[in-house]
């Protein structure tokens, strides 16, 4: 390619050299998988790569639909978590009395292993009904010509699954907002005093911005936890979503499908996570410390 300068070429060469051990290890893992599967030989304990792939292909349309369902719940959960986390975090950071009064509750809520709360969220929405914000035809209708638009409908709504995902994802961003706002260095406080800034002005011009790096770095945890929350909720609640597909695969003893679905979940989750990380990096001004 004539476009590459010698420097870019050297940089690329260096990057490949650095990633080399990782690539080798990755290939080794895949080889190991196939070897173990072949050695055990019965496709009942470890599914070999061929079996996994063919199971996935056979149910590709279901998978795409379910993944879209799950990750639309994840998006709702994530947005809820971030919005509520930042807003409530700002309020609690600002009002000292409130912070002290709610501190034990916050620590308690954070310490509770979240899965035990999932039933509560699910019951509430079963009984109260969920709110569907809007529906649209998911990507599966376009990818699979055999699928009707009706089958491929995705509903973006507030239900047990997405609210629970929001609950799980809420805490990292909530706590980091509080920490960030309260870490405002003294010299900015002094500047504010000298300028006669009101409380709201201090938040708007100083404290909120001080919290942003903390919030940005906690987004990574929020994404991960939102995904975990949605999947856990799907395990016990829904018949929709990719979480349920694994349960189905287990119940029907279809190992290839189970392997495949697990792999799909991991890959999509990782991509989602990377997207969030890149977006944060993209939005962060150059030269920031985070």
């Amino acid at each position, binding site marked *: 390619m004539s476009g590459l300068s*010698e*420097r870019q070429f*050297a940089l690329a060469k*260096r990057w490949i050299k650095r990633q080399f051990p990782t690539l080798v290890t990755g290939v080794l893992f895949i080889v190991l998988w196939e070897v173990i599967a072949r050695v055990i030989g019965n496709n009942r304990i470890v599914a070999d790569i061929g079996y996994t792939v063919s199971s996935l292909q056979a149910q590709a349309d279901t998978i795409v639909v379910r993944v879209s369902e799950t990750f639309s719940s994840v998006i709702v959960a994530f947005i809820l978590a971030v919005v509520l986390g930042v807003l409530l975090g700002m309020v609690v950071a600002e009002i000292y009395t409130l912070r002290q009064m709610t501190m034990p509750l916050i620590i308690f809520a954070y310490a509770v292993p979240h899965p035990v709360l999932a039933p509560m969220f699910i019951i509430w929405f079963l009984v109260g009904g969920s709110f569907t914000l809007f529906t649209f035809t998911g990507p599966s209708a376009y990818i699979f010509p055999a699928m009707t638009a009706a089958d491929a409908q995705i509903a973006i709504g507030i239900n047990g699954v997405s609210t629970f995902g929001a609950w799980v994802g809420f805490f990292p961003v909530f706590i980091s907002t509080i920490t960030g706002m309260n870490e405002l260095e003294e010299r900015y406080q002094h500047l504010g005093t000298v300028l006669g800034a009101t409380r709201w002005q201090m938040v708007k011009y100083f404290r909120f911005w001080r919290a942003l790096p903390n919030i940005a770095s906690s987004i990574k945890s929020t994404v991960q936890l939102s995904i975990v929350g949605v999947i856990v909720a799907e395990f016990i609640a829904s018949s929709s979503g990719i979480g349920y597909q694994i349960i189905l695969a287990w119940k029907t003893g279809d190992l290839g499908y189970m392997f495949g679905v697990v792999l799909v979940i991991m890959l999509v989750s990782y991509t989602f996570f990377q997207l969030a990380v890149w977006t944060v990096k993209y939005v962060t001004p150059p030269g920031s410390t985070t």
Partner: protein
Amino acid sequence: MNNKIEQQSRTGDAESVDHTISFDSVDKVYGADAVAEESVVALQDIDLDVERGEFVSVVGPSGCGKTTLLHMAAGILDATDGSVQINGVDVQSPRHERKEVGLVFQHPVALEWRTVRKNIMLPVQILKENGAINEDMSYYEDRADELLSLVGLEGFGDSYPNELSGGMQQRVTISQSLIYNPSVLLMDEPFGSLDAMTKDELNLELLRIWRETAKTILFITHDLDEAVFLSDRVVVLSPRPGEVADVIDIDLDRPRGEDTRGSTRFVELSAELHQHFKSLQ
């Protein structure tokens, strides 16, 4: 007590023909195996000899390779070309052939969870486990007490580093480097992070310790006056790639004290050094 220490450092090396620290046509290139544009020549053609018992300072603008020079003498970095020797032995030789050197850093390396005394004992614990030294621990425990007095930290042996000021922590670092009695001390801007008064105080302390222990010292600093005050000779390195631009003899009388800084000769030398420095930029 002082004579005992002095004597030990003298019997340390038999060859008095070789220079104590010797850089011979030394080059240091980073990334030498990469694309030409990516490699960095840190040091070029360094020839430097330090005699036994000398106090030599190295000064130069930021990034000129002073720390690289020191790390090479310590054996932490290897030279791309040329050889670095201490007491006639190449620094890259296997450990058991080498003599120990002391390395003092800009920031204290005292471990937070050890008392001052235990921190001073750390080097000999490691060296003894590896068979590099043979004396009893009790011998070194006595030495640790002596060193505490020597550096002015008497009574602080059982304190923790976090309880001490920056200047005191640096004294602990200096003691750490003295306990195993190396004949050579390599010091990398040891007083750089201290306030001016503490720095002056520690300068005097260092000269006193040097007088009493007769070590060979290679000292890096960005403070030109400090270099003039402390050294027998001052080596000026040019900006990257670092080369020896100048060597200035400091003919001030010893022992030097507080009034040395005000003397005419000191002012002259300092001006001369500043001049050399400016001409580098």
